[in-house]
């Protein structure tokens, strides 16, 4: 349903209606009638004259959609249920209506209680629903491709050459199709501002293996991949809209992807708007050429990632075995970098797991945590219900005396709980929709397709289901207890059942203990994550974060086909940037620290030869301009730094980091040592300096050996510029970009961020987890405090009489205060013990999220316990104070 409505519909209105349709209608109905319904609404709207009519139209439409949607769902449900449900409909529905009426009356009579219970439940259910909608959108929903369960990734990931890919394709039996792809950058010029595009080369069967074909034009054909085939490209819908205004005549037109005709391609297809590329940022696809005659490119470049579609009757294990069988042959054929270690990885894995595997744990842990919040909320409501026993007991005793069966009574009480639960659930749904808006903005970018998360029917069902389950959880115990009060004593004593006291108190205390236990668990979790996040903030990244702006530039290949052209471009660029007023220094590197990408290189110290056959050790490989170190505040520890002439003529030189100096030459001076790039020992470069360590990949990872090679000696197209400024770097962003454009206006600039932002982004996962857990823990504490307050308050009200007698007999205020507090703290103490035991058993699931702190960190536990007890004392203090102020005369006269 992607046709554009040709009415003058405002997008906001259409979006709202579309959301309503999504929420209430089953998919098939939406697809068939959705557009018609929207159009009907638009026509209706045109008839409307006044604001009042507009409002009335909206109300009627929303009601209409909701009711017809629910009717549709109900009828399909009824059809299913008719098969196995006995029918005693009339009887059941009659007494059900009566129960419902009573329930509503009961709650209307106690608005304060009802409000607290509903808000408590809404908080719990809302938080759960919000997290669940993210899980539903990200993890549970199948990949948006046809028969997604057949799609697999082939391992070892990105270690296939074109030749190996083709041989695998020829020999594999388990798949209906295998396709490869490899990422690369493009520079779109000739349409507006030059833009760097993410995309890549794909095998010609790419889209047919995935099962999504272009919405306009055609997919790739085998002849597109043949040597000398026409150069063609397929655009994403987003790119088509953004750069070409959705103009269909772009099909068949040539676009420039490298500037000056270096990579001119004919657009043959546009992907549909809902197509989700395998690599989320891709907007452009070109066929990769399979040319066996180009031996080096065909056989030696092992960068191709493979996906495949299983034959319908083949299992993952069978497919893995098939891949392993062929991998053995490939290894014999031409190993390349296909080492024995990589061979261990050969096989397939489900594409779905591959996409969501990393975040799945995070999300389930969050759901677990938020589930505890709901459990606390339920305990609270159960306690509130029990505390109302004093009020309800008489009414229930009368009902029993009049002959109501216990079962009937339990049903009445459970109906009441369900009414509470459902009302709480509806409010919770409202809360979840607000929370989601905030949440989706906060979620770390590593979660794929998070924008898919939203309220839809599955989420609605989930919210309803947890509302009902919660109702049972908090309703069943009070219902069981209420329904067998001591009949005679309740009637005789006029509803003040001091006899029910002790067992009743024991029970409420038990619930408080549970509540406190769960709160401890959550607060410990939050504490650990906060501490870990703090530890992460303390890690020295190894460079000066403040005052540095980073930008990515991608000179188009057409303008800069020769290394010498690139060299002079970057030399001019750095010079130009240094001349911008306010700029202190400028440099460039091919991969910024903390951006998760890495480039490694095998090396061998010439004076520490490695026996033939052994694999070479790998060091991080960074290509830099001389100004990079000064700009980033990386210190030179030994030797000299790079100069503008290094790498041009003369002997090759490079810098290494401190870790490498210490690990390769622990005893010797590394300056002047020679490094080879191969096991043959042929020197590659001489070490001329040692610089301080930088956290290159992530703050929580150990620094690896690292080689900094001069840019003049190894030119690359794409570089990150780093610019140190005297003041706030963002205020200079515009003049820095002007500077870049003044050197060459055709060079696209992207990823403009301060290094501080880069640093923050690299820890966003951990910050997010800590933040969310803190919110849950705060909720848990709040609900726990409310629970303790409510229970103590209730017990005090029950003991007013007793306290009055004590005070008449001469008990001091402070004695009463202490006694009530002591009484209130008993379950708290028990709860704390339960919580600590529970926490030490379960916080292990957090281990993967923790850095610099163990799941059983004693300091965290102590702080949590102390603060929880303080909160509990505070919550119990006010009722206790009230008790100690009891006027003995009033208390006794009340009798």
């Amino acid at each position, binding site marked *: 349903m992607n046709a554009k409505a040709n009415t003058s519909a405002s997008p906001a209105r259409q979006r709202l209606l579309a959301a309503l349709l999504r929420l209430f209608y089953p998919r098939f109905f939406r697809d068939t*009638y959705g557009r018609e*319904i929207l159009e009907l609404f638009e026509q209706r709207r045109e008839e409307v004259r006044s604001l009042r009519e507009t409002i009335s139209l909206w109300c009627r439409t929303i009601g209409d959609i909701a009711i017809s949607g629910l009717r549709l769902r109900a009828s399909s449900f009824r059809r299913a249920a008719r098969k196995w449900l006995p029918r005693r409909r009339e009887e059941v529905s009659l007494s059900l209506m009566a129960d419902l009426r009573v329930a509503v009356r009961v709650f209307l009579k106690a608005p304060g209680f009802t409000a607290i219970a509903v808000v408590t439940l809404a908080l719990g259910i809302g938080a759960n629903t919000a997290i669940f909608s993210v899980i539903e959108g990200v993890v549970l929903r199948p990949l948006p491709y046809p028969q997604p369960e057949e799609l697999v990734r082939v391992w070892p990931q990105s270690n296939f050459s074109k030749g190996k890919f083709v041989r695998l394709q020829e020999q594999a039996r388990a798949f209906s199709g295998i396709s490869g792809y490899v990422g690369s950058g493009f520079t779109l010029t000739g349409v507006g501002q030059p833009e760097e595009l993410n995309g890549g080369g794909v095998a010609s069967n790419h889209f047919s293996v995935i099962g999504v074909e272009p919405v306009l034009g055609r997919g790739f054909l085998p002849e597109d991949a043949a040597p000398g085939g026409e150069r063609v490209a397929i655009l994403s819908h987003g790119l088509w809209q953004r750069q070409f205004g959705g103009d269909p005549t772009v099909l068949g037109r040539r676009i420039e992807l490298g500037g000056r005709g270096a990579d001119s391609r004919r657009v043959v297809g546009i992907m549909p708007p809902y197509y989700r590329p395998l690599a989320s940022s891709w907007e452009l696809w070109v066929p990769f050429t399979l040319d066996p005659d180009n031996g080096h490119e065909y056989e030696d470049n092992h960068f191709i990632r493979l996906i495949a579609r299983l034959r319908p009757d083949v299992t993952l294990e069978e497919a893995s075995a098939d891949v392993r069988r062929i991998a053995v042959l490939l290894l014999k054929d031409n190993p390349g970098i296909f080492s024995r270690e990589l061979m261990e990885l050969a096989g397939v894995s489900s594409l779905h797991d591959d996409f969501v595997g990393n975040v799945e744990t995070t999300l389930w842990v969050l759901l677990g945590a938020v589930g505890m919040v709901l459990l606390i909320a339920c305990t609270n409501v159960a306690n509130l219900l029990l505390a109302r026993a004093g009020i309800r007991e008489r009414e229930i005793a009368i009902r029993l005396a009049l002959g109501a069966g216990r079962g009937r009574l339990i049903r009445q009480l459970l109906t009441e709980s369900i009414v509470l639960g459902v009302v709480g659930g509806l409010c919770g749904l409202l809360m979840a929709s607000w929370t989601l808006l905030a949440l989706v903005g906060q979620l770390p970018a590593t979660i794929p397709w998070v924008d898919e998360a939203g309220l839809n029917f599955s989420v609605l069902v989930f919210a309803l289901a947890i509302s009902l389950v919660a109702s049972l959880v908090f309703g069943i115990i009070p219902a069981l207890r209420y329904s067998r009060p001591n009949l005679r004593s309740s009637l005789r004593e006029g509803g003040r059942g001091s006899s029910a006291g002790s067992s009743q108190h024991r029970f409420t205390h038990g619930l408080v203990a549970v509540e406190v236990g769960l709160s401890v668990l959550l607060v410990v979790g939050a504490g650990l994550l906060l501490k870990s996040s703090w530890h992460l903030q303390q890690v020295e990244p190894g460079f000066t974060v403040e005052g540095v702006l980073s930008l990515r530039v991608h000179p188009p290949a057409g303008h800069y086909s020769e290394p010498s052209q690139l060299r002079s471009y970057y030399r001019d660029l750095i010079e130009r940037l240094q001349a911008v007023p306010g700029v202190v220094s400028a440099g460039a590197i091919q991969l910024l620290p903390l951006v998760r990408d890495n480039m490694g290189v095998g090396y061998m110290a010439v004076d520490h030869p490695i026996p033939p056959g052994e694999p070479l050790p790998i060091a991080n490989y960074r290509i830099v301009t001389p100004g990079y170190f000064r700009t980033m505040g990386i210190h030179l520890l030994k030797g000299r730094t790079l100069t503008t002439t290094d790498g041009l003529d003369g002997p090759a030189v490079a810098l290494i980091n401190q870790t490498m100096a210490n690990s390769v030459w622990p005893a010797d001076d590394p300056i002047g040592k020679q490094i080879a790039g191969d096991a043959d020992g042929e020197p590659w470069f001489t070490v001329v300096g040692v610089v301080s360590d930088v956290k290159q990949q992530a703050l929580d990872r150990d620094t690896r050996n690292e080689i900094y090679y001069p840019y003049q000696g190894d030119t690359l197209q794409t570089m990150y510029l780093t610019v140190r400024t005297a003041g706030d770097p963002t205020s200079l962003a515009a003049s820095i970009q002007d500077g870049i454009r003044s050197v060459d206006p055709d060079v696209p600039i992207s990823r403009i961020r301060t290094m501080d932002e880069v640093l923050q982004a690299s820890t966003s996962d951990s910050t997010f987890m800590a933040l969310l857990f803190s919110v849950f823990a705060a909720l848990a504490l709040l609900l726990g405090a409310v629970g303790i307050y409510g229970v103590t308050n209730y017990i005090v009200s029950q003991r007013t009489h007793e306290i009055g007698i004590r005070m008449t007999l001469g008990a001091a205020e402070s004695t009463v205060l202490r006694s009530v507090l002591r009484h209130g703290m008993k379950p708290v103490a028990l709860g704390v013990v339960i919580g600590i035991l529970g926490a030490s058993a379960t916080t292990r699931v957090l281990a993967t999220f923790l850095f610099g702190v163990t799941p059983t960190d004693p300091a965290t536990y102590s702080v949590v316990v102390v603060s929880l007890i303080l909160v509990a004392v505070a919550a119990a203090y006010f009722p206790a104070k009230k008790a100690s102020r009891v006027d003995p005369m009033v208390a006794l006269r009340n009798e």
Partner: protein
Amino acid sequence: MAQVKQSPENVIPLTPRVFQILLALVDGEQHGYRIMKDVEERSGGKVRIGPGTLYEAIHRLVASKWIVESKGQPGNSTDDRRRRYYRLTDFGRAVLKAEAERLSDVVSFAESKKLIRKRRPA
């Protein structure tokens, strides 16, 4: 939905909404908006069917094969080119007839009891 052979008499009485929708299709095929307006006009604005309810009913009627979506669309009016049109099936027409007769019997009974004035002879 099981499609057992049914006789029109077994499926009546119809709900007023369904009756009205079927009635709107008596003269030939119509699209959703026309059906909605037709029902509204015939009832003097008293019966209003919301778009969701309308298509829910249409969905059921199509599933019961009382109406079908028509392939060819009447006229060449350009603004209607994307709309879905519906028409009665023979069975749907029979149901409508059976219901009309039933209602007519009810009305005759009311007349014979002098509850309402006799209609003009047809």
